[in-house]
């Protein structure tokens, strides 16, 4: 476990994380405004990359093209991809989602899934099932050595471009009129409409902006790996959504934080040996036990109104957390329990299950010793993260930023 290995993993984790972030922003903005998982977003991302790559192939770039012309072509490709992909995003909203406003979430989500599958297969029909190859001449190939690890210039470019775009986005949302309209629409669409905000326009704008970010993400991925496949966006979309939920859906900084954590988790998870991961898990277990035995009961007890606060009541709540499996199940099964104890029992059971899982994994990892975490489980990592975060903290790390309307 050399330091340059860890450093290399960190940089590639950050690069992947930044790309996840660009996609996750689209999910999180749409969810914030419409409370809809825009399932087709992953495909929008792929199409963005495909359009950029095929524009460059069509123009025809090769190694002899002078740098200035390359930059020009590059800009043209980005612009074409941005415009077409943003139009696609606008169209998707107009055709598949707008007629369903006011319907239940399931209906809208079904429409989103249908759109996603349709687009994915349209890519196959139009571009064929074989992957599209990015012209290599346009991709900066240089690298720098930092701490003995080779970092590609492109990785630095991706990180910097992503940061700039996120800054731009934050400025749009926080500092412009349309951003204000977006925030108002996400809080209460009807009220916003009454205040004279064109909510339909605002929603369309949200889709256009999300799609534009996804297009740039697709372009960066196509450059970074050199090729894109028709189903690349599906997995990237799912992971980006995981990142959005991890950071707290509807929350723009949250999406970035979640994406970086996920990118790092995937790379470290595969690259580090099981022994190191086991120690990380032990630390996690300590944190989990602290939550279960100290912090959670203390919080629950603080909810007890003063006039009911008796040592016996406090002990009851604490015991539910302490002897969770037995007591919690018994509490949950009995119909007549105090609401606070009932809620505590549910919570305790979840924490307990989580701690047991962490403990089990740590034991397994210790037993496997110095072996590497098999990379065949790489994609499972993000799915497990998604399930875990939804089970134990559905509001995400930085908290949700959406208005639940009843």
């Amino acid at each position, binding site marked *: 476990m050399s330091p340059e290995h860890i450093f290399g993993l960190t940089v590639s984790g950050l690069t992947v994380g930044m790309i996840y972030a660009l996609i996750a922003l689209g999910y999180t903005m749409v969810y914030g405004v419409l*409370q*809809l*998982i825009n399932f087709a977003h992953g495909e929008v991302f792929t199409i963005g990359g495909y359009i950029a790559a095929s524009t460059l192939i069509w123009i025809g770039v090769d190694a002899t093209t002078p740098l200035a012309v390359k930059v020009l072509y590059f800009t043209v490709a980005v612009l074409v991809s941005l415009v077409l992909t943003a139009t696609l995003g606008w169209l998707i909203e107009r*055709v*598949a989602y707008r*007629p*369903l406003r006011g*319907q*239940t*979430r*399931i*209906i809208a*989500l*079904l*429409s989103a*899934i*249908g*759109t*996603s*599958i*349709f*687009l*994915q*297969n*349209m890519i*196959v*029909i139009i571009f064929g*099932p074989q992957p599209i190859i990015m012209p290599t001449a346009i991709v900066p190939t240089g690298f720098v050595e930092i701490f003995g690890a080779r970092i590609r210039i492109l990785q630095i470019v991706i990180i910097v471009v992503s940061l700039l775009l996120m800054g731009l986005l934050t400025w749009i949302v926080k500092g412009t009129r349309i951003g204000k309209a977006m925030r108002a629409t996400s809080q209460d669409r009807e009220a916003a409409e009454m205040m004279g905000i064109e909510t339909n326009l605002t929603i369309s704008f949200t889709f256009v902006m999300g799609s534009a970010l996804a297009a740039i993400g697709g372009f960066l991925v196509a450059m970074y790996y050199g090729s894109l496949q028709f189903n690349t966006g599906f997995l990237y979309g*799912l992971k980006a*959504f*995981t990142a959005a*939920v991890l950071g707290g859906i509807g929350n723009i900084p949250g999406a970035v934080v979640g994406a970086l954590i996920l990118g790092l988790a995937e790379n470290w998870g595969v690259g580090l040996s099981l022994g190191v991961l086991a120690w990380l898990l032990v630390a996690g277990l300590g944190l989990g036990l602290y939550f279960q035995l100290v912090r959670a009961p203390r919080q629950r007890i603080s909810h007890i109104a003063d006039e009911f606060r008796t040592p016996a009541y406090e002990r009851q709540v604490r015991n539910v957390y302490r002897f969770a499996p037995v007591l919690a199940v018994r509490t949950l099964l009995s119909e007549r329990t105090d609401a606070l104890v009932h809620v505590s029992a549910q919570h305790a059971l*979840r924490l307990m*299950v989580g701690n047991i899982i962490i403990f089990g994994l740590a034991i397994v990892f210790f037993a496997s010793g110095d072996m590497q975490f*098999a990379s*065949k*489980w790489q*994609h*499972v990592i993000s*799915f*497990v993260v*998604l*399930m875990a975060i*939804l*089970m*134990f903290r*559905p509001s995400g790390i930085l908290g949700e930023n959406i208005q639940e309307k*009843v």
Partner: protein
Amino acid sequence: MAAITARISSFFGRVPRWVYIVAVLAFAIAFPMLEYFGLMQTLWLRVGTRALVYVLLAVGLNLVLGETGLLHLGYVAFFAVGAYTTAILSSPRFDIQWNFWVIIAIAMGLAMLFGFLIGVPTLRLRGDYLAIVTLAFGEITRMTLNNWEGLTNGPGGIPGIYPPQIFGWTVDSPAEFFYLLLVTVVIVVWLLNNLKNSRIGRAWNALREDEIAAHHAGVGPTRAKMLAVVMSSGIAGLAGAIFAYYQQFINPTYFLFMQSVIVVSMVVIGGMGSIPGAILGAVVLDTTPEIIRQTFTSWLPAAIGPDFLPGVQAAMQTEFDRYRMAIFGLVIVLMVVFRPEGLLPNKLWRREMHEEDPRELEKTGQHLFDFEEGTQDLEV
């Protein structure tokens, strides 16, 4: 035109329900006999048998998606659990052959257990989060089956699954499997239909319509949803166990995410919350591609000569599959936008989908409540 369709539909409306049921059952029972008497190719018997597996899946998913209104995108995972139970307990893989009934019980039990485990933490979540968690669960299940080589032989799959023996009767021909599945489907549909009209069935519908109102009316949401999820998982497990027997070979590529999507489309197209709808959706979506393919690879060439439109034929042979999934996606969107209640709608869903502004209705002279159908409102 509208008058004619109204007349025809009014005619169909007058036929009592049992007539349809008897007609469908009679047709299903007679179906393998067509093959036996040489009136039909065995191919269609195989297609019919596979369609029955999808009917089981669609009916099971309908319980969750249609009745309770939870979007479940990892349904195929429970199917996989059932199929792998059979494959592991009745094949040369570990050289064991357990009793059919034991395997069915274990398959259903395991699938239900997984349904329960996935339900405990997730049923509290918003509906759309549930969709993503189930999707993640489905993918985790498939990757685990693919990676756990010691148990499942990984991507190589488990070949040579022994045929089941039910009270000494060895089921090994397509016709026998067709009847086995038909009996299963009839039992499951009968049970589900009774459930649908029972107390718990109404609780599910109430939750689908408005969870908060239902909760306040005394329906425990988590418990009722849990029951739906666990039962539908059991049905998928059952379908998977029989499917593995029928197929005699199982590997993880049977359980891709697209399979879940196909089952969801079946329920949506047939009509969410409607059992006849789910059956129709499954049969139509599973057989249509085969019919189209057969038309272009056998029937048309035989009719017009093999050189008929070689381009079209080649395209249908090689391109059709790509269009098939694109069409599935498009159909889901179109159905949801234009006819969310499906082809054979459940009454309550349709009403909910077409809720109209009372002021608009007044203008056209219609009433918000259809008083002539007053008795129907209570029936649900």
